[in-house]
């Protein structure tokens, strides 16, 4: 076990090192792709906190990304001189507050009811975004300008691909790490245990409904943060950002990556963005292939990519163990 966590630490360190040094060698196109992957990683990780850790299938995660994106975009347009992180903060806060409100309405529900209600709320916000033309731009979408970050002694030029990449990496990276930390806290364990045995947790004295609501609000917070960066990254927010398709994206990423491991969705987000880029060069019908891949994975690999990797590692481990075992047996046979 100790050895295992040490390898994980080394692996994590190497990945961080690669992520930080990549801009020195990669082309701007690759860096842009990587930035998108990082933003969607947080989105997928926050979705997995609901699906994988809470056991709650939500079809309304897209609305929080959309709320974050629209608020950040609209505020930048309306408040002159609003700083970069001011917009991020406002976007994230709006998503969190609405997450809290929706979470209160969902208090008593779980399972299919939960899936259904979140879907209805997402449809409501989608309809609102289309109708509220004055703020969201309706079907035309909302152009977003990306302000520079003023640190006092130096101004960071945010139009620069590399600078935006580093800012995203640090902020979103910290948020992802915080999500990971959350799963280790007492609150995180409570959520996990409520998923496993709700009645017993109730008996011990926890309130499952409240812990579900806190989890929901927290994921809304992170999705809103990802949404704010989404707006600033694309410099444009369309109604697609708040649609059910956006929720679908979270679900696909998370499921393809694997819901059972924390970093599975990160893998899934990276794979999804890469695969999407790769396929859209070949065919316009890439969502179809994504859907077929999804159904195949539901049928044959319900643990996702990370599950596949884990079973491969275990297979190799068992092969290795088997060899040593046989040797030992030979020795004892003599």
């Amino acid at each position, binding site marked *: 076990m100790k050895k295992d966590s040490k390898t994980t630490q080394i692996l994590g360190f190497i990945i961080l090192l690669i992520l930080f040094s990549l801009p020195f060698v990669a082309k701007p196109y690759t860096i842009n792709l990587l930035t998108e992957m990082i933003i969607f990683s947080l989105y997928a990780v926050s979705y997995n906190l609901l699906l994988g850790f809470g056991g709650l299938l939500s079809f309304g995660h897209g609305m929080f990304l959309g709320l974050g994106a629209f608020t950040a975009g609209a505020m930048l347009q309306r408040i002159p001189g609003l700083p970069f992180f001011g917009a991020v903060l406002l976007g994230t806060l709006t998503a969190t507050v609405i997450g809290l409100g929706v979470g209160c309405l969902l208090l008593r529900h779980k399972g299919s009811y939960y899936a*259904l209600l979140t879907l209805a709320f997402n449809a409501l916000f989608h309809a609102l975004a289309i109708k509220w033309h004055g703020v969201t731009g309706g079907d035309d979408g909302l152009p977003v300008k990306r302000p520079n970050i003023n640190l006092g002694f130096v101004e960071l030029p945010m139009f620069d691909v590399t600078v935006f990449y580093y800012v995203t990496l640090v902020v979103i990276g910290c948020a992802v790490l915080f999500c990971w930390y959350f799963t280790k806290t007492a609150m995180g364990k409570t959520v996990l245990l409520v998923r496993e045995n709700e009645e017993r947790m109730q008996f011990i004295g926890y309130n499952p409904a409240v812990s579900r609501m806190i989890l929901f609000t927290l994921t809304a917070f992170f999705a809103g943060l990802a949404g704010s960066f989404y707006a600033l990254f694309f410099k444009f927010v369309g109604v697609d950002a708040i649609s059910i398709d956006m929720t679908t994206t979270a679900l696909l990423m998370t499921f393809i990556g694997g819901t059972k491991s924390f970093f599975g969705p990160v893998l899934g987000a990276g794979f999804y963005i890469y695969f999407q880029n790769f396929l859209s060069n070949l065919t316009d019908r890439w969502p179809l292939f994504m859907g077929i891949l999804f159904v195949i994975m539901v049928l044959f690999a319900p643990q996702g990519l990370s599950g596949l990797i884990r079973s491969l590692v275990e297979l190799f481990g068992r092969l290795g163990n088997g060899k040593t075992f046989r040797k030992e047996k030979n020795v004892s046979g003599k």
Partner: protein
Amino acid sequence: MNVIIIFILHGLVYAGLLFLVSSGLTLVFGMMNVLNFAHASFYMLAAYFSYSLLKWTGNFWLCLLICPFLLFVIGALIERFLLRKVHVLGHLHELLLTFGIAFIISEMVKWIWGTAPLPIQVGGFLDGNVTILGIIYPTYRFFVLFCSIMIGLLMSYLLLKTRMGITVRSAVDDSEMVNALGVNTPRLFMFVFALGAALSGLAGVIAGPLLSINIGMATAILVDAFVVIVIGGFGSLIGAVVASLMIGQIQSFGALLFPKISLALIYLLMAIVLITKPSGLFGEKK
């Protein structure tokens, strides 16, 4: 006065469509505990089938007969070869599977028929208008109303009076017990799932000329059907009838009286029902 009657009729027509879609959804949920996200995709698929078939044969009545049957077969195949496979993995995977199927169907439709809305002409006597009590109203809308009432009556007869219906109703209550009593529940599930698909398909065919055939039609009715079964209560057919009627009138009069917030009205109703009676109007507390 005439305006009010016309809007009541509009609401009834939409309620009829909604009932056809949501009755299958609520029965399948009651029996198999699976919330079928692909249900409205069957509706869309049938509408597109009817478009092609109508272009080919020119006979709307043929579409009305063949398309639901095609959907019945497709539904049966999906239940038998896909849904049953993931049953052991639990509800979450079943839900995800139906969701994936819905996704694939919608992409296939985009691929085959394109993304532009398709016009459809019924032809024959259904195209005209009828004058009743001084109100001129399209014949086709009366036809939709007639169809949904007939199907509703047929369904209640089947469910209440036949042996098959008794089995289905008991399976909605407790499918394990029904299985233990010697009924082949997997076959029953397949049959009800396919029947739900066929009903949804029928709704799709008759919805085609009424609303337009487009790629957003599945999501639009799916959300409304979900709201119907939340308000009516899961697994309750009477609930589906009552909630469909309510949603139909709200949609119709919302567009007349509060055009700005008409979209939000049904969600408002849903929120009120959820707060006062979380299991729905006719749902059992589970």
